[in-house]
């Protein structure tokens, strides 16, 4: 059933955080201010690679209204951060490695004064040769960016005998795929307010996807005990993975502690571009072969990922790519060789899809090329080679049984859009230079952090003193609709009314550590938490109610407003009355780990979401521009928890993928950004969104599946690019290997002749 308002009934609900968003009254953390507040600014390197010879902060310090100027000498604890590897300097000591590298920070009475103070800080640099290409960084004579070399991470996988595999092939295709340095472009740039408390504690109001990870990292930097730091981390004006790593927090925290005054930092867009993370640009070379019937035999992949100056999650992203270049297909002979390489380019890191986007673009491109060689329907080739429900995962690891691959394949096959593929041009007359094509692609996408990475989950339910039932989680709301999903689950699973519920998230003083809000995991983990808590919490409430009412527990049930008698369906006791009754406070919590596969392969996944996309595009051969006319997405992720949120995540993910495919690239030359703001870095606007995005969720799971809903936060963003590439090929016969697609590639001289003829006739 297609997902829309009309098919969702009562489950299509107004979000609990909606009213404040449409009236502008919601205070994002960058909207906050405090009495006596100072403004923070960070001095960053103008050079992509240089030695620091001298830093002189004297003049800046002397400026009236400047309260602190900090350098590496002022970091009380560890002068490094990073979720997985702490190798990024808070302040550089003697070397800068990219144009976002921080050298100093100031706090002043006005933003303008802080800006002026930055110009008074003198830094002498000695320029070093720039390594701005990942492939060149691997050469023997390349300048070393880190003492251990220029390779952050090397990840390999092999199975079978590649040589004999290829020699048995009847058809082999070989190509190299390039993907861009995509920018998250969250509308709210990084920032926040840092407030020293009277008791010496520090409160940090700054967006992140994992408050407890920020707290741990800030505790290392400030040499304060973790409990002395409170992180308030939601609401967030978009993140998409981009705010998971620390950004302004080290500077805000250190400046606030130094001045003992509240400090506000809010990045300008250009500051956000130069210092922020991007999607890893990748070069993926693939050689793939089949037998004469189309059966895949051998698949060889080489990946070079440009991770930029420091590690952040570069190794983990590469592991994900290595897994996903294998995809949902069966092959005997496989070899993958991946490198994540340091350069003096901008920092790459976590981004929605986590390296799957690059992998799927390349892999699905190979399948299309093979189908052409075989003279076969590309969709049929996929069916022939697809994994079966009980097949192991890409690394041969045990994974949860689902029919997801075949389900989304079948759904796409049956879709109106794919049925149209024989005659995409039929419905209307077009100018001769406009060509239309239909293409499709599909994927399996891992959820959770994978084997070998701490992946805790859990939460708490409590009856508060005022009679509200509190759902307390360490997750963050960055727009994905987590609160709406949680509220709906509480209503449906516990029979509560919205007014009975208080949801508490995003504050390390109040919530348990539920793990990160990343990797399409939060909805799955909230669902599992509620499953775990349902019986103990409900029975505690009902037992207490039974005592008070003198009625046996089995005659009572939870409902809207309070406890009901099941037979008569009458309200016997409100939650408020229950809360006011004497006795120990009713509260239940659970903690567990995201389920993982029984394998030693680091990063390997256990739970997967499957998706297939069919897309119809129009190519203007005069301009070379591609316009997406229609999209169909089938997503097999188990039961839909929140229809509005599900639709929004797939539509929004596909929009991000549209930019990835057609316009978005944070261009760099010699380690400098050429695209500094939204005038040159082009994300899709409403004008780019023609036609409908039809979403078909496949909710059926095998009998006995205990894992419930799978994540959908990322999967909408991974499969559109190869589907568009396939549609372009159908329309104009050109194979795209590089994203974003360069219009020059699709321009056609004959089309110009047509245009001239058409004009002369008028």
């Amino acid at each position, binding site marked *: 059933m297609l997902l829309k308002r009309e098919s969702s009934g009562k489950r299509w609900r107004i979000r609990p955080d909606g009213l404040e968003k449409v009236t*502008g009254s919601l205070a994002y953390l960058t909207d906050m201010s405090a009495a006596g507040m100072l403004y923070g600014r960070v001095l960053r390197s103008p050079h992509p690679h240089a030695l620091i010879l001298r830093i002189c902060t004297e003049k800046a310090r002397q400026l009236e209204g400047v309260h602190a100027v900090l350098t590496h000498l002022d970091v009380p604890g560890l002068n490094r951060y990073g979720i997985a590897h702490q190798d990024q300097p808070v302040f550089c000591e003697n070397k800068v490695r990219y144009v976002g590298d921080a050298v100093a920070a100031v706090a002043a009475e006005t933003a303008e004064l802080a800006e002026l103070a930055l110009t008074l800080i003198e830094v002498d640099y000695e320029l070093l040769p720039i390594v701005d290409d990942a492939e060149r960084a691997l050469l023997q004579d390349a300048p070393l960016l880190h003492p251990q070399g220029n390779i952050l991470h090397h990840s390999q996988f092999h199975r079978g005998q590649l040589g004999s595999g290829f020699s048995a092939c009847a058809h082999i295709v070989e190509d190299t795929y390039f993907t861009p340095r995509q920018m998250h472009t969250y509308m709210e740039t990084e920032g926040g307010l840092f407030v020293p408390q009277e008791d010496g504690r520090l409160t940090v109001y700054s967006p992140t996807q994992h408050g407890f990870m920020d707290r741990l990292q800030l505790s290392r930097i400030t040499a304060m005990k973790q409990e002395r730091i409170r992180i308030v981390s939601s609401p967030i004006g978009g993140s998409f993975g981009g705010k998971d790593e620390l950004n302004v927090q080290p500077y805000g925290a250190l400046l606030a502690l130094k001045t003992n005054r509240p400090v506000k930092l809010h990045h300008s867009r250009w500051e956000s571009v130069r210092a922020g993370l991007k999607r890893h640009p990748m070069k993926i070379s693939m050689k793939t072969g089949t037998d004469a019937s189309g059966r895949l035999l051998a698949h060889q992949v080489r990946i070079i990922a440009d991770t930029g100056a420091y590690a952040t999650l570069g190794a983990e992203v590469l592991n994900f790519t290595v897994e996903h270049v294998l995809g949902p297909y069966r092959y005997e002979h496989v070899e993958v060789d991946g490198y994540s390489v340091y350069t003096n380019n901008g920092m790459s890191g976590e981004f929605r899809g986590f390296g799957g986007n690059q992998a799927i673009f390349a892999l699905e491109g190979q399948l299309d090329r093979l189908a052409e060689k075989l003279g076969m329907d590309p969709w049929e080739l996929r069916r022939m080679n697809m994994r079966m429900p009980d097949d192991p995962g890409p690394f041969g690891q045990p994974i949860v049984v689902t029919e997801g691959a075949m389900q989304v394949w079948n759904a796409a096959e049956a879709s109106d859009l794919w049925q149209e593929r024989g005659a995409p041009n039929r419905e209307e007359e077009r100018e001769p230079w406009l060509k239309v094509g239909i293409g499709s692609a599909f994927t399996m996408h891992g959820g959770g952090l994978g084997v070998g990475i701490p992946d805790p989950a859990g939460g708490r339910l409590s009856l508060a003193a005022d009679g509200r039932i509190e759902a307390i989680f360490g997750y963050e709301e960055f727009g994905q609709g987590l609160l709406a999903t949680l509220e709906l689950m509480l209503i449906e699973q516990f029979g509560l009314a919205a007014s009975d519920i208080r949801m508490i998230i995003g504050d390390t003083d109040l919530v348990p550590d539920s793990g990160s809000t990343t990797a399409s995991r939060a909805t799955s983990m909230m669902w599992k938490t509620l499953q775990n808590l349902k019986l103990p919490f409900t029975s505690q409430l009902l037992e207490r109610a039974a005592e008070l009412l003198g009625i046996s527990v089995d005659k009572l049930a939870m409902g809207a407003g309070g406890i009901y008698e099941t037979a008569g369906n009458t309200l016997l006791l409100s939650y408020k009355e229950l809360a006011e009754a004497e006795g120990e406070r009713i509260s239940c919590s659970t903690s567990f780990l995201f389920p993982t596969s029984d394998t030693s392969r680091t990063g390997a996944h256990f739970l997967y979401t499957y998706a297939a996309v069919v897309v119809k595009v129009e190519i203007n051969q005069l301009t070379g521009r591609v316009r997406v006319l229609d999209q169909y997405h089938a997503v097999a992720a188990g039961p839909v928890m929140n229809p509005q949120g599900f639709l929004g995540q797939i*539509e929004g993910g596909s929009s991000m993928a549209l930019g990835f495919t057609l316009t978005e690239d944070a261009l760099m030359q010699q380690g400098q950004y050429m695209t500094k703001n939204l005038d040159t870095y082009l994300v899709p606007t409403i004008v780019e969104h023609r036609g409908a995005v039809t979403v078909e969720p496949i909710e059926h799971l095998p009998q006995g599946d205990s894992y419930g809903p799978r994540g959908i936060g990322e999967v909408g963003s991974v499969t559109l690019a190869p589907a568009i590439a396939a549609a372009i090929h159908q329309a104009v016969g050109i194979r795209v290997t590089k994203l974003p697609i360069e219009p020059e590639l699709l321009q056609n001289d004959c089309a110009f002749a047509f245009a001239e003829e058409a004009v002369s006739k008028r």
Partner: protein
Amino acid sequence: MSKHEMLGAPRGAKQRELACTINGEDMKLEVNGAKRLLSVLRDDLALTGTKRSCEIGRCGACMVLVDGKPINACLTMAYQCAGKQITTIEGIGAADGGIEPIQRAFLEEGGFQCGYCTPGMIISVKALLDRSPDPSEEEVEEALSGNICRCTGYGGIKRAVQRAIEWRREAP
């Protein structure tokens, strides 16, 4: 060099009294004429519904109505506001203190996710429907082409605008 000059004000610029109307209220503000309206609203008046994002007039997060026209507050100088009627998202709402039908349409259709672009988006829709109550799809696209949303994929936004148009048609 005076502190005033150091702050980047043009030589000779003075703190001037700026008289304008903001959300229906007559205001007299002491501001440097070269200060941006975005900063006046957010920093001086704490009207933070107007959002800061690209600051070069591309994303529309800071859209406000100036004499009914949608304007990027990041590109507008304080001096340009003299005598003008300025409406921010805080000034949008039904006469009875409730919300505008456009706002309700965004709520019901899920025309937002993180919500950071939403105030600007609603301002642009309001400007459009006030001047053209029954716009074509092209008009809607043109009117919203200066408002970037990174979350929704615009599907929910389009549905919200269509719904707002329908409501206006039903109850003029």
